[in-house]
C-alpha cells in the first residue's frame, strides 16, 4: 500500500490494489487519469505543454512533458500491465488560466485543446473533465476502486 506521487512531466501506473496515485498543484498543466476496471490497472500523466514540436530533443528525453507524446505513453504503460483500450475510463483535470488571459498566457487553454484533439483523433471518449478556471488542482486515483478525486486549492476533495 503506497502513495505514488506524479511529479510535473511525469507518469505513474499501477495494478496494485493498495496503491493511490496522486499529483499535486496542477495549474495550467493537465492531469490525465486512465483506469481499466476489469484489469484493475490505472495510471496518471501530469503534462506541462501541448506540443512536442517545441523541443524534439526534450520530448525524446522526457516524453511526459508534452500532451502529444505523454498521452500515448500513458496508454502504452497501462497496456503493459494488462489494460485494454476498449475498457479504459479517461478523466482529466487542470488546464487553469490566469484572469483575462491574453494569447501569451493561454497555455492552460492550449493544453485543454491539445488533449481533446488527441483523444478525438484516437476515438477515445473523455468520461469526466474538470478543466479551466483559475485555481490549482490536486488529483487522486485509487487503484482498488478506480475512483478519482479532485481537490481545488483551499477546497474539499470531490469525486470526479
Amino acid at each position, binding site marked *: 500500500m503506497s502513495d505514488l506521487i506524479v511529479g510535473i512531466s511525469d507518469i505513474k501506473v499501477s495494478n496494485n490494489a493498495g496503491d493511490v496515485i496522486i499529483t499535486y498543484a496542477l495549474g495550467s498543466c493537465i492531469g490525465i487519469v486512465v483506469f481499466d476496471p476489469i484489469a484493475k490497472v490505472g495510471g496518471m500523466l501530469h503534462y506541462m505543454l501541448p506540443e512536442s514540436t517545441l523541443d524534439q530533443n526534450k520530448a525524446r528525453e522526457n516524453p511526459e512533458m508534452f500532451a502529444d507524446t505523454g498521452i500515448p505513453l500513458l496508454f502504452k504503460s497501462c497496456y503493459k500491465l494488462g489494460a485494454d483500450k476498449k475498457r479504459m475510463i479517461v478523466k482529466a483535470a487542470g488546464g487553469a488560466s490566469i484572469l483575462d488571459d491574453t494569447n501569451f498566457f493561454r*497555455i492552460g487553454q492550449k493544453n485543454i485543446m491539445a488533449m481533446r484533439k488527441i483523444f478525438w483523433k484516437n476515438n477515445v471518449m473523455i468520461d469526466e473533465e474538470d478543466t479551466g478556471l483559475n485555481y490549482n488542482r490536486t488529483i487522486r486515483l485509487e487503484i482498488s476502486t478506480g475512483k478519482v478525486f479532485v481537490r481545488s486549492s483551499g477546497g474539499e476533495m470531490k469525486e470526479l
Partner: protein
Amino acid sequence: MKIVERILKSINTIPAFPATGNKVAQLLTKPDYSVNEVANVIKFDPSITANILKMANSAYFGPRHKISSINDAVVYLGQKNLLRAIQTAGISKYYKKGALGYFDKVTDLWEHSVAVALMSQIISQKITGQENTTLYTAALLHDVGKIIMGEFVRDSLAKISGLVATQNISFLDAEEIVIGINHAELGGKIAAYWKFPAEIIDAISFHHRPDLLEKEEKIMPWIVYIADQACIMLGFGGGVDGLSYRAVGQVLKKFNLRMKDLEMSMVLLSDDLSRAKELISII
C-alpha cells in the same frame, strides 16, 4: 487599531537584513580584493556560513570543483554565483515559517520564490542577453509581503475568495479591498525597511502590475512579473490565490515575445529546478 496599521507596524519586528551580500559585492568591485578578506566577511554571518557550502555544491551553480570551505567558494564559484549563493542563504531564513494563510505547506512559498528567481534569469537571458544578480535577489524576495500578510489573509480568506469568485477581480485587488493593502505593496515596504535599492523595491511592489509603474523603462518589474506568472501557471508553489491574477497584455509587444518563447522558458526552468534541489531544500 486598523488592520493596515497593525500590518505596517509588524514590519518593524522583522530582523534586519544581513549585510553580508552587500559587503561582499563591494569587496568584489575592488581589483585587489583578497580571498581571505571576502571569506572572513561571509564567516562573520553564521546562518549564511551554515548554508552556503551545501548550496555552492548545487549543480545549478555549476562548480567544477568540490567546494568544501568558504575560501573554496570564493575562489571557485565565480562572483555572480557567489553573490547569488550568499543572497539565497541570507533570504531563506525569513521563509522558514512560510506564509500559512496562503499555502498548505510551510515550504511552498520558498519553493515558489526559488522557482521565480531561476525563471527570472532565464527570461532575462532571453530579453537582455544576460543574467542579472540584482534581479535574482528581487525575484527571490518578490512575495516577501506574504510572510506578514499570511496571518491576515487566513482570517479574511472567506471574504477575499468570495470577492475573487463573484466579482471577477484579482486576488491582489481583493487583498486591497478586504485588508487595505496587497502583498506586493507590503513586500516593497519590507524591502525599503531592509534598505534595498529602489529598483528592487519597485520590482517587488509592482510584480503583479508592472504596467502601473511610472518609470516605464524599468525592465526588472516586468521580468519578475513574467517569471512569477509562468511559475504560478506551472503550479510551482501554488497557494490559495491560485491563478487569480490579471494578465498584463502589453508584455508581449513590449519585449517582442511569442507564446513559444514562454513555453520554451518553461522547459528550461524544469531543467534548472532539477539542478537546484539544494536551493529549495535549505529551509
